[in-house]
C-alpha cells in the first residue's frame, strides 16, 4: 500500500472544523459584538488587561493554535467552494487562499513571539 499524506491533511481539516465550530461563534461574540452591543465594557479589552493575559505562554500557544487551525480550515474550504461556484481555477485558488493563510500564519507568529 502506498503511503499517503491524506490522513494528516484530513485530520488537520477535521480538527480545524471542530475547533472552528466550537469556538468561532463565542470568539466573534466576545471580540466583535460584545462592546458594540453593550454586553461588555470596553475596559475588559484594555491593552493592559490583554497584555497581562498574553504574558502567559500557554494562552499564547492556545491563541496561535486556534487561529492557525481556523485560518487553514477556511482557506481549504474556500478553495473547494470556489470550484463549487463554477470557478475552475484550482491553481489560482491554491495560490490565493493558501498564500493568504501562510502570510497570516507568519504575521501571527511574529505577533505572538
Amino acid at each position, binding site marked *: 500500500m502506498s503511503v499517503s499524506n491524506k490522513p494528516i491533511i484530513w485530520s488537520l481539516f477535521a480538527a480545524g472544523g471542530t475547533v472552528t465550530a466550537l469556538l468561532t461563534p463565542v470568539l466573534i461574540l466576545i*471580540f466583535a459584538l460584545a462592546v*458594540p452591543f453593550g454586553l461588555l465594557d470596553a475596559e475588559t479589552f484594555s491593552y493592559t488587561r490583554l497584555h497581562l493575559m498574553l504574558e502567559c505562554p500557554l494562552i499564547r500557544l492556545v*491563541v496561535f493554535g486556534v487561529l492557525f487551525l481556523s485560518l487553514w480550515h*477556511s482557506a481549504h474550504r474556500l478553495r473547494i467552494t470556489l470550484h463549487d461556484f463554477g470557478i475552475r481555477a484550482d491553481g489560482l485558488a491554491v495560490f490565493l487562499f493558501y498564500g493568504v493563510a501562510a502570510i497570516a500564519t507568519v504575521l501571527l507568529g511574529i505577533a505572538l513571539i
Partner: protein
Amino acid sequence: MKLANGNYVRPTARFSWWLSKKNYFSYMMRELSSLFIGIFSLIMVWGLYQFSQGEAAYNAWSNNLWSNLTVLSVLSFCFAVYHSFTWFVVTPKAMPLKFAGKRIPGSIIIAAHMLLWMGATIFVWVAFVYGGEL
C-alpha cells in the same frame, strides 16, 4: 447532451446550480460560512499584530472593529453559528462511534457535541471576562 462515446449527460448550470434546489442552497450557504470565518480569523490575526505594535495601534484596531465593522461582525456571527450547528449535526456520519460492539445512536453523538459546544462557549466567555480576577 450527447457525448462522443454515445452516452448522454444532463447539462448542469455551472454557475447557478446551487440556486435550483433548497438543499443545494443550504449547502452553499454552509460553505460560504468559511469566507466569513476566514475574514474574522484575519481580523483577529491583524488585531494581535497591531497589539504587538503597541497600545495606540491596538486601540485603533479595536475602535475600527467596534464602530465600522458591526454589520460584518453580525453577519459573521450568524454564519459561524450556522456552520457550528451543521458541523455537529453531521458528526455521526463523519465519525460513527461504537461502544461495546454496538453503534452509538446518532442523536446521542449530536447531543453530546451540542453540549460540548455550549460548555466551550460558556467556558471561554467566563475565562475571558473573569480571567484576571481569579
